[in-house]
């Protein structure tokens, strides 16, 4: 839930999604769901010469389970807030 919320705060920011097939796709984060499926707009694929497969694709839906990393815009991530939220979520789960 925490990570889902973090991604929601990053909508309309540019992110780079690296997949488990080694494709890296940069685009504007349009939406995310509870499975961390991601929709990106205005995409470009890293090293397009080697990966021309998506030349004509302008936006895409990525299945959360195939994501290895997402590179986030550091200036839009409040690390103190993240740490506090993580501690709170962990504490809340401990009480259950």
């Amino acid at each position, binding site marked *: 839930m925490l990570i889902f919320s973090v991604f929601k705060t990053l909508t309309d920011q540019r992110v780079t999604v690296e997949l488990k*097939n080694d494709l890296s796709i940069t685009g504007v984060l349009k939406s995310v*769901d509870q499975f961390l*499926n991601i*929709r990106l707009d205005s995409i470009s694929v890293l090293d397009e010469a080697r990966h021309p497969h998506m030349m004509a694709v*302008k936006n*895409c*839906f*990525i299945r959360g389970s195939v994501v290895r990393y997402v590179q986030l815009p550091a200036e839009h991530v409040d690390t103190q807030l993240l740490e506090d939220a993580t501690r709170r979520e962990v504490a809340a789960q401990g009480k259950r």
Partner: protein
Amino acid sequence: MSSLQGYVDRRVLLVLQDGRAIVGVLAGYDQKSNVVLSDSKERIYSIDEGVEEVELGLYLVKGDMIVLIGEIDEAIDQAVDLASIRAEPILPIRY
């Protein structure tokens, strides 16, 4: 689901877990992101020759097999000469 809503009736590219690339018109989908494509073709990439297109017609793809679904800009896609493209196939997903 981060919704495939906007993709219905559009030409899309499906990338599958095994690295295959399939283009077709998204006829429908369900909650598990199982997908039905109409008028679909597999695009087979190779480093030695141009892209080969294999007709698949009406095709159902299980949601678990899907890596990504991309909306194709028809104008750009039609401007591309597939026969001139040399590229390795997309790698399969490795967990």
